[in-house]
């Protein structure tokens, strides 16, 4: 069985790409918050990616990825019509979604894609969803229009002020929380420092804060414990106990440290890949 790429959209050239993949049995079961694991070749490693969107009727699953290393660079070479050899999901516990009032969904970087699926889930449950997204500048903003189709409020922060608030998403979030005491939950997905900062902002407000952890994984089904993290002083596995946890309980320092575990190997792999690409192009 192989998994055909039905659509490829370059969101940020050389950096962020969206793929729509034909995987009916995954699409049928996938819920917001779930992730998939894919491989790009028979020699490939297992790459976990949070689902950005899915369409059960069309049988498609959408993923968005940032080119950070060899495996994602290789994934970026796939074009429409080509197929991935392995695509496994849905994995992880889905987001706990119920009608609860106002939910603020904060997304940073590629995390906006995963946040999009969760925000959509909250919106269809009848919640008032406020999306807060950020990027370095307006050209790097993801899913801004898509979020607008179901979120009554889309608040934007850019580092250079080219769109929305000049500054960080946390500043926008804080202001929004100060204006409205009835926010029932804040969801944050993005780089670790962002999620940590969001948790810090929401703490004094006493708002339930959910973060989605992008730990290193191997199997993604609980077998290996590579993704273990400390939540409320207890070791949890992001793949089967999460990936979503209470942001006020997560040991972000440990998570950041563990994410750097294979930095040297990742660089070695990437250099070799880039070298091969150059040779392939006859340079």
């Amino acid at each position: 069985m192989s998994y055909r790429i039905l659509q490829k959209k370059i969101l940020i050239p050389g950096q962020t790409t969206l793929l729509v993949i034909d995987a009916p049995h995954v699409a049928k079961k996938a819920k917001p918050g779930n992730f998939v694991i894919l491989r790009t070749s028979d020699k490939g490693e297992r790459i976990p990616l949070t689902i950005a969107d899915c369409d059960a009727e069309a049988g498609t699953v959408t993923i968005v990825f940032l080119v950070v290393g060899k495996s994602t660079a290789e994934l970026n070479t796939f074009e429409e019509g080509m197929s991935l050899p392995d695509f496994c999901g849905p994995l992880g516990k889905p987001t706990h979604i119920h009608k609860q009032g106002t939910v603020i969904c904060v997304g940073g970087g590629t995390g906006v894609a995963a946040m999009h699926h969760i925000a959509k889930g909250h919106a269809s449950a009848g919640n008032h969803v406020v999306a807060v997204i950020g990027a370095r500048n307006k050209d790097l903003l993801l899913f801004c229009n898509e979020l607008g189709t179901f979120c009554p409020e889309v608040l934007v922060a850019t580092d250079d002020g080219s769109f929305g608030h000049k500054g960080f998403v946390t500043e926008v979030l804080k202001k929004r929380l100060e204006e409205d005491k009835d926010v029932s939950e804040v969801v944050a997905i993005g780089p670790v420092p962002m999620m940590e900062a969001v948790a810090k902002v929401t703490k004094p407000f006493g708002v339930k804060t959910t973060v989605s952890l992008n730990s290193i994984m191997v199997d993604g089904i609980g077998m290996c414990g590579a993704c273990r993290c400390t939540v409320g002083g207890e070791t949890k596995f992001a793949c089967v106990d999460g990936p979503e946890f209470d942001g006020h309980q997560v040991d972000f320092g440990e998570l950041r440290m563990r994410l750097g575990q294979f930095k040297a190997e990742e660089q070695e792999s990437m250099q070799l890949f880039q070298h091969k690409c150059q040779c392939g192009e006859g340079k």
Partner: protein
Amino acid sequence: MDTKPEKKVIKKIPRTEMPTQPPMVRIRNYLEVALGYTDAEAKAEAARCIQCKKPLCRKGCPVEIDIKGFIGQLQKGDLPGAYKVLRDYNSLPAVCGRVCPQETQCEGECVLGKNPDKTGGPVCIGRLERYVADTFAARLAKGDSACLQITGEAACRMERPELKVACIGGGPSSLTVAGYLAALGIKVTVFEALHEVGGVLVYGIPEFRLPKGIVRREIDAMKALGVEFKTNWVGGKAILVQELLDQGYKAVFLGVGAGLPQFMNVPGENNIGVFSANEYLTRVNLGRAYDFPNFDTPIFKADNVAVIGGGNVAMDAARTALRLGAKNVYIVYRRTKDEMPARLEELEHAIEEGVQLQCLCGPLEFIGDENRRLTAIRLQKMCLGEPDASGRCRPVPIEGDTGELKVGLAVIAVGTRPNPILLEATPGLKLNKRGYIEADPETGETSIFGVFAGGDIVTGAATVISAMGAGRRAAKEIARRLLGDEA
């Protein structure tokens, strides 16, 4: 061989050793350690079997192989005949010949083992099983049907596509169910969560003990018999048990394995350089990290490595670390060498290769530097106390006696606990006190009618062959229900 058994005089003939790669050569490669018998060696070893009237060896085998029968065929020089006997009981003989703990099973019961000074010791049943499976497969001509390989018969029975059975999990127990039922013409679909079928045979047991080509050979043969393998399908996520029953599967077998690695709950356990044995071995075996960067999955390396635990998984991890270039590899175990649950052969191989034993101690803390990278393990020294429920002496900490072992990599191999994914997604599935599936010991049937289970998800972590035994019992019951007297 012409003398009648009762008049047989047993001569002392030593067990025929199996050639191995020399230790200092094999720790530089990832190839199989034991090289297998030559024809002459197999013939000599088979001749040692006295063909007891009432063989005890068979009672020691979890799948009750007719050991006397297959060795008898070998004595006659009938290799296909020997293979046919093995295959009638065991769908993975090449695997079992390598990884079974024969010394506590068939060979432990062999009558020649009762008085080794006079007999030379038990017949090397495992080595002969491996010889038969490997040699038979090697002699199959290209184009010979897989059916010949599986059933020893040139043509398979008619397929019965209307009789569908599903297996969740692609390890030894499910493969046994699939092999058994497919040979009867029943249509089996195996749902495997990972990208490769074989379970512990591919992610856990290293290449140097069980070459993956052997596992693939068995699986390819099953494919040719009509078994369908669906990889990347997680039972309890992509597919539910009830959905399979609703889709017309007449029975569902759950063989999802032991599951989650146990950690020890000591400080510093999440530091960089501390791994579960499952992660360490999965990266190396399933991910082929020993061939990084040719393969993409990376592995963590260090000059000094400690493996915590004394079982076969610990031995596999320690010997893997040596092959990845570690200078010092320690097995840290809280009891002594004599209490280690590992097979003697594995322990001996590990020691030959240079693995150092640090017995009677256990980790108190995994010490990290300012970047939380592991630098040492603080150890609690132990002594042996009274026997516990397992019959082994309980390790008792010696108060105030601690030490430090400088290592950059620690691999924790202290067992597993049940994986919750399928269990949580299957309402009505009764679990036992330890959280594993409750299954009828005779038939493997669970609390849900038509749903069977076997292997580590029922017993907790055990051996490949015991999982296969459970698979075989379940398969027999499924066949009886589906085919009636025909089975």
